[in-house]
């Protein structure tokens, strides 16, 4: 590594070429403010409402989930289910027209209603985000080096030289070939995969403890997609940061995430460790999602559009369970809102008549069927163990936040 490293890497010049020691990545590793075993992020009854042309669009409707520090969690759901809006809401990135209520606690600090000043320090600092389209996410008129350095300077006390060195180091960390040269290039000179690496480098500049990747690989070809996912997993493990990967792609979620949250109509309808979820799907919507995907000839990036029926109109949600109009199991009971409840250890769902309960037109449990055979899923080291935090049974988030 260049001499420059020594100027800021706390005197640790023993770092060898190539793999970068995470410790040298900057400030001494910060102890989490939260208690051990505490979730890093607790989203509770998050609601986001837009008003557009006099219509109220309920993009997020009582979303609740928890995220274990250092873990990788996938949020999946149909287009329009509120994945992007909810994650932007917790970073304070929504336009002022968005009405946000509910609670998001990050390491115990409430983010909703946090003053912009504090929020700004958090953004790109403790929480960072990578977006879907790397072609549009970088400023076309700025050199990539300047774009990374800007982030570095915002979240450290490094001077110009130090920030430069740090930025190059970040580019090496995300395995950008010829980092020193690329530093002086513009986004249009890079390929899609390289741009997304730059985006990740920018996101890592503040040493985040939470990285939100909003369909970060959707715009990339399959090979590059796999490379970027591998990189994210590696960084997650090496830097001990938590990752929320937002995806359309159940297969991608199954291969890389430890936990999966399934969103429907702006709320979480099922949430479990990946292995548990795919072995034992309970929420009819998740079931339909899996059934909608033919195992082999599925397009890698296809949307779940084959689920029968339409996603609900967010400005006129049905009474009770939002999936009711499309649900084969629906009964009158479903006119009541089903709470998201931890029915089995670590397995939460929001449904009165889950798959396998023998009610309604229950198609029966689909364990072991479909593209995501648990035997296959278990082969993936990422799936082998769920979060070590054991959840007490019977916990639940109700859609309107009251305890039941």
């Amino acid at each position, binding site marked *: 590594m260049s001499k420059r490293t020594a100027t800021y890497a706390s005197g640790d010049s023993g770092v060898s070429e190539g793999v970068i020691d995470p410790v040298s990545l900057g400030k001494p590793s910060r102890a989490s403010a939260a208690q051990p075993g505490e979730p890093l992020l607790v989203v509770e009854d998050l609601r986001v409402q837009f008003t557009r042309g006099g219509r109220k669009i309920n993009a997020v409707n009582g979303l609740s989930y928890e995220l274990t520090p250092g873990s990788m969690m996938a949020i999946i759901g149909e287009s329009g289910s509120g994945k992007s809006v909810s994650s932007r809401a917790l970073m304070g*990135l929504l*336009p002022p027209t968005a009405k946000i209520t509910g609670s998001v606690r990050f390491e115990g600090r409430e983010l909703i209603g946090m003053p912009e000043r504090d929020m700004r320090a958090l953004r790109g600092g403790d929480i960072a*985000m990578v977006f879907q389209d790397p072609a549009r996410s*970088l*400023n076309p008129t*700025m050199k990539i080096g300047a774009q990374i350095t*800007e982030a570095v300077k*915002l979240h450290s006390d490094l001077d110009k030289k130090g920030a430069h060195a740090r930025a190059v180091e970040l580019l090496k960390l995300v395995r950008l070939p010829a980092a020193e040269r690329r530093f002086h290039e513009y986004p249009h000179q890079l390929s899609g995969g390289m741009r997304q690496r730059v985006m990740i480098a*920018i996101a890592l*500049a503040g040493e985040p403890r939470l990285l939100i990747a909003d369909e970060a690989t959707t715009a990339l070809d399959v090979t590059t997609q796999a490379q970027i996912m591998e990189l994210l997993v590696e960084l997650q493990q090496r830097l001990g940061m938590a990752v929320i990967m937002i995806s359309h792609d159940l297969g991608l979620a199954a291969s890389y995430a430890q936990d999966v949250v399934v969103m429907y109509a702006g709320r979480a309808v099922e949430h479990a460790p990946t292995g548990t979820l795919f072995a034992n799907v309970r929420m009819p919507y998740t079931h339909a999602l899996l059934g909608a995907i033919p195992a082999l000839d599925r397009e890698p990036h296809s949307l779940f559009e084959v689920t029968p029926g339409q996603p609900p109109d967010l400005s006129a949600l049905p009474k009770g369970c939002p999936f009711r109009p499309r649900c084969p199991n629906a009964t009158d009971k479903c006119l009541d809102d089903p709470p998201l409840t931890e029915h089995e250890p670590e397995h939460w769902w929001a449904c009165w008549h889950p798959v396998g309960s023998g009610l309604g037109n229950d198609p029966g449990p689909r364990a072991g069927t479909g593209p995501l055979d648990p035997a296959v899923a278990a082969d993936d080291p990422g799936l082998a163990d769920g979060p070590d935090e054991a959840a007490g049974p019977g916990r639940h988030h109700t859609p309107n936040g009251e305890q039941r």
Partner: protein
Amino acid sequence: MTATATTPRVPADSRGPRASRVGRVTGSPVLRLVVKRLLMAIPIMLGVTVLTFWVLSLIPGNAAQQLLGPEATPEDIALLEQQLGLDKPGVVRYLEWLQGAVTGDLGQSIVSRQPVSEILSQRLPVTGEIVLLAFVVSLVLAIPVALLAAHKPDGVMDRISMVVSTLGLSVANYVLALLLVLVFAVTLGWLPAIGFVPLEDGLWPNLRSMILPSAAIGLPLFCFYTRFLRGDLVDQMQQEEYVTTARAKGVGSWSVLIKHAFRNSSFGLITIVGLNLGALIGGTVIIEQIFALPGIGQMLLQAINTRDFVVVQAAVVIFALVAVLANLIVDLLYAVLDPRIRYGSS
């Protein structure tokens, strides 16, 4: 947010042709651009001068008649026509003029016998000063106002700037000129109503004589630039994903606006300013008339009235040249400022 963000808005596209023109082929791409543009100017110049000549020949009367007045006898007129060379066929006269023009000799005024180059050296600085003042002042004011307005769309600043710019754009510049004269010259008496004071008579007297004409041209420009830039900035801020990236990095709202959005909006602004320049020069004709300023515009009007085709041609050549140069400068600025073009990739 994502709903609108997915609408593709590809600013590079609109500059696509430029990008390919400025390839990094042989030598300096900038030099190639300059040469290319100047070569392109040749047919443009030929076209406008031929057209001007033809249109002038359609207007009844010629310089000889104008010089001698309505009382002149046909014999006198014929004699003077002969002396002035107006008896030759139009094609010959044009070619004679062209022959001189390509060697840099724009000839002499048929009416005053003064060499055109001398006339231009007196008149160009006047028009140039008005235009320059109008441009600089309108841009210097428009940029901060647009930034303030775009920082909080629909905020107080935005609303005020919207009202002012709508008003400014809906008033024709000669009406504005008369209003300005009425208020600042007639009623308040702060500034001269008409006339030009050359720079040699002192900077302040010169500026005083230029303030109203420049304002009459610059105010609508200011309104136009403000509207354009504000709109483009708001588009960038609301629709461009790189803005979200910047905000997600923790960049403050003003920095996002100035360092990121404005940087991108400035390309559009440069284009607008460049395109404006050609039209603007034409707009000075009426303003110079109102304020009795001895500029190119006034010269053109007088020359048309006296059918002094040599001087008319000179004015037309100047106007066309300015338009060509303005375009060239815009392209050069792009080449220098926009990395996507500088590196010759799309």
